[in-house]
């Protein structure tokens, strides 16, 4: 386990380093951020001053080594647009994205797993077909369109829920969350549903496939012969066995929707990291883009590590060291 962890950490550092290099060069290649940020009425000397302010008059490799030196000390540079540490800018918006994605994953799992189990158990009945068609819609309908439809139906036509924004927040352990107020819950419902559709569809399909596979296996026949109820077979035994692929995918999905909740955040004007990254790309705010992508890569690495450890917990046959024989 120890060797496994060390090897993982070294791999992660290599991935992070390569990632930072690729992003740095890539954003530099798009163009000069000053051309996008400066007011056109500014005279040439103000433009030169701005270029100098952001360190963009130095050659690319010098800028990169400067960045690397700071990164190793834990400082990922100052945002061009906000003149604050890029990490700080991202972290201010992280709680909003985190609560949205957590809500979305909870909705996806709470509805996805039972629906998948039902679809798998009664796989020949019409109810399964309905659920499966629903899941196809879930991952193929563009979330931008679904979001706008939700707003039109629930906010504009029916007027039950607010159209955009985050609700009132309370501070818990220094972090602001809107999940504890009624106003906050009203605001988060539509975006969370919108964001949950894609994961829910995948969870339904995976769960159904797993259930169908396992219902053919011998241990289910033996359990039935032993006289166990269908509910016990399904929810206690089959569910636990199909969780490995489902947990893997849920982990990946969680990372995915944290990093790329951009569309939902844009449609619902949710003040999270996704909106920040889109704005930063439009304005060529390189420090924020680099910091955000490094953070995302780090997050994926962490999630994968947790999932791998969960494997060994869920299935005692799985060993974590790669040279087990």
């Amino acid at each position, binding site marked *: 386990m120890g060797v496994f962890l060390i090897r993982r950490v070294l791999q992660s550092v290599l991935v992070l380093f390569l990632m930072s290099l690729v992003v740095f060069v890539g954003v530099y290649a*798009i*163009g*000069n*951020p*000053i*051309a*996008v*940020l*400066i*007011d*056109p*009425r*500014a*005279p*040439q*000397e*103000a*433009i030169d*001053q*701005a270029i100098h*302010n*952001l360190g963009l008059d130095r050659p690319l490799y010098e800028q990169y080594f400067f960045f690397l030196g700071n990164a190793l000390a834990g400082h990922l540079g*100052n945002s*061009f*647009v*906000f*003149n*604050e540490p890029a990490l700080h*800018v991202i972290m*201010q*918006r992280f709680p*909003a994205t985190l609560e949205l994605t957590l809500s979305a994953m909870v909705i996806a799992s709470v509805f996805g797993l039972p629906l998948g189990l039902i679809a798998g158990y009664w796989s020949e009945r019409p109810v399964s077909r309905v659920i499966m068609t629903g899941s196809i819609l879930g991952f193929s309908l563009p979330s931008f369109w679904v979001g*706008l439809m939700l*707003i*039109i139906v629930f*906010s*504009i036509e029916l*007027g039950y829920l*607010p*159209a*955009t*924004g*985050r609700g009132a927040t309370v501070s818990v352990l220094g972090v602001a969350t809107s999940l504890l107020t009624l106003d906050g819950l009203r605001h988060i419902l539509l975006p969370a549903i919108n964001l949950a559709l894609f994961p829910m569809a995948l969870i339904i399909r995976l769960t159904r496939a797993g259930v169908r596979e396992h219902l053919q296996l011998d241990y289910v026949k033996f359990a039935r012969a032993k006289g166990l109820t269908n509910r016990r077979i399904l929810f206690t035994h089959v569910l636990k066995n199909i969780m490995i692929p489902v947990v893997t995918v849920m982990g990946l999905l969680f990372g995915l929707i944290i990093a790329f909740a951009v569309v939902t955040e*844009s*449609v*619902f*004007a949710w*003040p*999270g990291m996704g*909106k*920040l990254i889109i*704005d930063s*790309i*439009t*304005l*060529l705010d390189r420090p924020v883009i680099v910091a955000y992508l490094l953070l995302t890569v780090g997050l994926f690495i962490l999630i994968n590590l947790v999932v791998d450890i969960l494997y060994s917990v869920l299935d005692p046959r799985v060993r974590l060291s790669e040279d087990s024989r």
Partner: protein
Amino acid sequence: MRTSMVRLALGAVAAIVVGFSAQAADLVIGARAEVEMDPHFFWLSSNTAYYRHLYGHLVATDERAQVIPDLAESFRPIDATTWEFKLRPGVRFHDGSTLDAEDVIASFERVRTIPNSPSPYTGNLRGIAETIAVDPLTIHIKTFKPEPLLPGALTTIVIIPSEIAKTAKTPDFKTKKAAIGSGPYKFVSYTPGDKLVLTRNDDYWGGRPYWDSVTFKFIKDDAARVAALLGGDVDLIDFVSPSDVPRLQRDPKTAVHIGPSDRTIYLYLDVGRDVTPYAVDKATGKPLPKNPLKDLRVRKAISMAIDREAMTQKVMEKLATPASQTVPPGFGGYNPDIPVTPYDPEGAKALLAEAGYPDAFGLTVQCSSDRYVNDGKICQAIGQMLARVGFAMKVETMPKAVYFPKATSRTGDSFSLFLLGWGSSASGEADTLWNLMETYDKKTGAGTYNLGNYSNPKLDALIQQATQTLDADKRHAIERKAMAMAMADVALIPLHYQSVIVATRKGLDYTTRADEGTLAMEARPAE
């Protein structure tokens, strides 16, 4: 007896509550642009609109972008290189301190020395040699040479208390600590990416502002902003896309307010280079050996091939006006005698043949796709119109993050025929003359945005004369002459003037501003 007493009491309470809520006038605005809270850090027209709520300036601009007194109740040049500004007495900042000349000088100094700014305001203070406080309410600004446009430049410099100017850092302005100004509204809270909340300043020198509180919600996506208005989340939205206007006009719950913008949309032509990369031989695809855009007849032909009426009626959905020059009507230097170039495809073909291009040539037109209203569509329409007179057209649109670095680059990889928009509100006059059409001179800062490298010594002489003339009427006359000369020589191809489109819930009136700024002060309940 008891129940009727209870009912009476309840009725009284209800009446009081209803009475109070009828008094509370809160405005919620769904704004496209977020705000940078430090007023000296990031010069951007959307930022300056926000600052007008919280802060004051020496001078301000009205809805037609003309300079009016603000914290300075009067201003005049007392000699060729000195301007005198007299401050309004008794103006208080939100923390209770009074305004005096020290605050102005400290604010100017902060603008000059602020670190790490990606778009500094220093250009507006460029001509100033010295700022002197003659007495607590009088300031003399000495300039290196005559600066007739200095008041216009000073409309962007926010005045804050001198103690804050000397010590505050950029992040402090997100909090009550530093967000102290003299504007009609006071700072309550700011949540990055989410909203800005302001409350009325009852001590505002300009009279009691109407709204009790103003909340800006930042909603960048156009469709989401319209949805927020329709759903009742916000009372007012700005930068409405023309395609949403018919729906909002039809809806009984919303109203649309349209007004002229200061922004002219125009095309640059690369006339500086001997070979321009995007004007190519139709057969070989290689750039033509002699840049055809240098020929006045070719430039005229391109301008004549564009049907501005069709563009404004169809592409801009009637929400633009054809332009004859690069400054809108009502601004200083606008010459009413210059006609809009009439649509004349036959004349264009004849001119091209006369210039030696009977079959025209291959040409690429480039635009941004997300900066100006319908910019991508405008580009496509231009491509189609030019194709009709014989050009083999290619149309390229790209996001502004890619477009602007390339368009403004002077190191060779810029375009041949490309689109931009220029807002003249900063000066209130035809500043496109010296910003876009004067010969580029890095040392003097002339022609910073002369991206086609147009150079006409006769025009430069007129422009130089204009920028040194302190008398406004004389200066405007020279500008009119210069504009006529520039348009006759097709230095740029003006297309149309944009409109400002704001939508509100029914029952609100809004006066649009030429500088496209969204101000709570322009909104009030409808009569």
